[in-house]
C-alpha cells in the first residue's frame, strides 16, 4: 500500500484507502481457494478438475450472456463469476454429471446474481443458490457420494461424470456415505483426525478440514474477509452442539465431529464471509455468525437432511438486510440509534 504522491488532492472523503479493488479481492480469494482445489484434485483426481471447470464455465457463460443486458455492463473482468463457479464446484459431489455442474454454474450467476442487479446487489450467495437449485432439481445426483480414488488413480474419471446432457448417470459402484450421512442414518461417528485430513467421502472441497482452516487463517490475517463471521459460526456450533451432546448422553454427535464434518468449515470460511451477503458492521457479523451456527446444528440434528450448512447460510443471507438495520453503528454524539 504505497500512497501516491499527491500535489493537490481534489476529491471527497475518504482519503485513506487500503487500495483494495474488487478484482484484487476476488484474486485474493481465488488464490485462497487454491490449496483447497489442490486438495480436491489430490483426493478425487481428474473428476474434481472437470467438475470445477464445468461450474466455472457455466458461471462465466451466464455472466457473458446476461451481463451485457445490465445497465452497468458486464462485470466479467472482476473475476467474480469464476470465483462463484469455483466455490459452487467445491460444494458438489465428485461424481456429479458434468452437465448438471454446468447448469449449476449457469443458475448461480443467472438466477442468483444478475437478476438482482449484478455483483454487490445480490441478496443470496450465488454459489449456494446454484447448489440449492441443483439439490432441488436433481436430489439423487446431489446425494450420491463417490468415494475417494486417491492419488494413485488420478486419471480415473468417474463414469457418472460423463453422462450425456439431460441423461441419468450410471449408478456408481464406489458410492459411500459421508460422515454426516453415516452419523444420521447409521449412528457411526468418524474419527476427528480423518475429518481433518480429508480421509472421508464428501463434496469436492469439504473433506480436508486442515487445508481449509489454514487457508482461512491466512486469508483472515490478510483481511480478505471479516474474521468474526467464521469464528462466530464455529464457536456457536461448538457451544450449541456441545451443550446438546453433554445433555444427550451419547445420543448426539460430539461437538468436534460437528465441527469437522460436512461443509461447515468450507461454508463458514468461503461462503458465509461473502462481503455482499453478510452484514457490514462487526456487531452484525456476530449476530450473523451466531444465527448460522445455531441453524446448522438444528438442521443437522433434527432436520430431514444430514447437512444443513447451505440452508443455514442462505437463511441468514435473507436476514442480512434486517441485521444491518438493527446493528447499525451509532454516530458519535447522536442519541439512541433508530432501529
Amino acid at each position, binding site marked *: 500500500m504505497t500512497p501516491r504522491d499527491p500535489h493537490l488532492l481534489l476529491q471527497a472523503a475518504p482519503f485513506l484507502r487500503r487500495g483494495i479493488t474488487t478484482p484484487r479481492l476476488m484474486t485474493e480469494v481465488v488464490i485462497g481457494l487454491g490449496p483447497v482445489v489442490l486438495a480436491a484434485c489430490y483426493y478425487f483426481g481428474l473428476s474434481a478438475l472437470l467438475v470445477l471447470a464445468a461450474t466455472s464455465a457455466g458461471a462465466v457463460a451466464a455472466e457473458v450472456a446476461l451481463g451485457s*443486458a445490465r445497465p452497468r455492463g458486464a462485470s466479467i473482468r472482476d473475476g467474480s463469476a469464476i470465483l462463484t463457479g469455483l466455490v459452487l464446484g467445491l460444494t458438489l459431489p465428485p461424481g456429479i454429471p458434468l452437465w448438471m455442474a454446468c447448469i449449476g454454474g449457469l443458475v448461480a450467476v443467472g438466477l442468483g446474481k444478475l437478476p438482482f442487479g449484478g455483483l454487490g446487489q445480490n441478496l443470496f450467495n450465488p454459489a449456494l443458490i446454484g447448489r440449492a437449485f441443483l439439490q*432441488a*432439481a*436433481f436430489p439423487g*445426483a446431489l446425494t450420491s457420494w463417490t468415494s475417494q480414488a486417491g492419488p494413485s488413480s488420478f486419471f480415473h474419471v468417474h463414469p457418472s461424470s460423463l453422462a450425456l446432457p439431460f*441423461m441419468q448417470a450410471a449408478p456408481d459402484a464406489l458410492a459411500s456415505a459421508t460422515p454426516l450421512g453415516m452419523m444420521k442414518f447409521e449412528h457411526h461417528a468418524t474419527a476427528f483426525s480423518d475429518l481433518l485430513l480429508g480421509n472421508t467421502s464428501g463434496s469436492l472441497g469439504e473433506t480436508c478440514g486442515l487445508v481449509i482452516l489454514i487457508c482461512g487463517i491466512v486469508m483472515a490475517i490478510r483481511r480478505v474477509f471479516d474474521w468474526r463471521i467464521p469464528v462466530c459460526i464455529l464457536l456457536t456450533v461448538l457451544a450449541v452442539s456441545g451443550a446438546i451432546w453433554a445433555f444427550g448422553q451419547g445420543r448426539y454427535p460430539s461437538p468436534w465431529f460437528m465441527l469437522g464434518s460436512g461443509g461447515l468449515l468450507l461454508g463458514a470460511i468461503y461462503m458465509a464471509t461473502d462481503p455482499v451477503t453478510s452484514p457490514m458492521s462487526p456487531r452484525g457479523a456476530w449476530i450473523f455468525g451466531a444465527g448460522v451456527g445455531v441453524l446448522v446444528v438444528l438442521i443437522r440434528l433434527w432436520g430431514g437432511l444430514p447437512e444443513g450448512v447451505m440452508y443455514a447460510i442462505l437463511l441468514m443471507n435473507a436476514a442480512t438486510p434486517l441485521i444491518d438495520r438493527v446493528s447499525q453503528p451509532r454516530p458519535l454524539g447522536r442519541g439512541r440509534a433508530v432501529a
Partner: protein
Amino acid sequence: MSAAPTQQGRLATEFAKGVWKENPVFVQVLGMCPTLAVTNSVANAIAMGVATFFVLVGSSFLVSLLRKLIPREIRISTYIIIIATFVTLADSALEALVPAVHHELGAFIALIVVNCIILGRQEAFAAKNPPLLAIADAAGMGLGFCIALLCLGGTREILGSGSFLGVSLFGPHFEPWVIMILPPGGFFMLGTALMLFAWMKQRRAARDGALA
C-alpha cells in the same frame, strides 16, 4: 388509430392486442394463481386455458349484451354471477370429458370465477363496447392466456418429466429436473419469461429511441 377505422380493422386490433402486446400473463401479469399452480404439465395447461377461454368469451358476450341493463352500483356482483354461470358449465363439461385432468385441476376450475383477467375484461372492455368487439377482445385475451400457459406448461413438463403431453421425448434414461414440476419451478419459469419480455421491451424502446 386512424381517423375512421373499419369495423373489421377494429375487431382485428382488439383481438390481436391480447395475444401479444397486452398479453394478460406476460405483460399485464394478471391471473398469476392458475398460471403458477396448474402449469406443471401440458395437459393441465391446455385444460385450464380452454376453460378460461370459454368462460372469458361467454361472459364478455353476455355482459356486453346486458351492459345497458346492469345498474352501475351492482355491476361487479352481476359480472360475478354471469362468470360463475359459465364456470359451472365449464366445470361440468371438463368433469364429463376429461375426468382425470378435472381431478388434477381440482379447485382451480372453480377459482376461475375470481380470475382477475376475466373480471378485468368485463369492467375494462365488455361493459363499454358492443358484443362483437367484446367477443374479439375476450378471444384475444383468452388466446394470450392459453399461449402463456402452454409456454410455461410445455417448458416445465419437458424439463420436469422429459415428456410433452405425456409422450416421452428423451427415452427412459432422462434425468428429470424435479424442481420444475414443483411450485418453485413455476416461479422460476414465470420469472424467466417476464425477464425475456422486459428485455424485448427494452430493446424495442432503444430501437424506437434510435429511430426518433
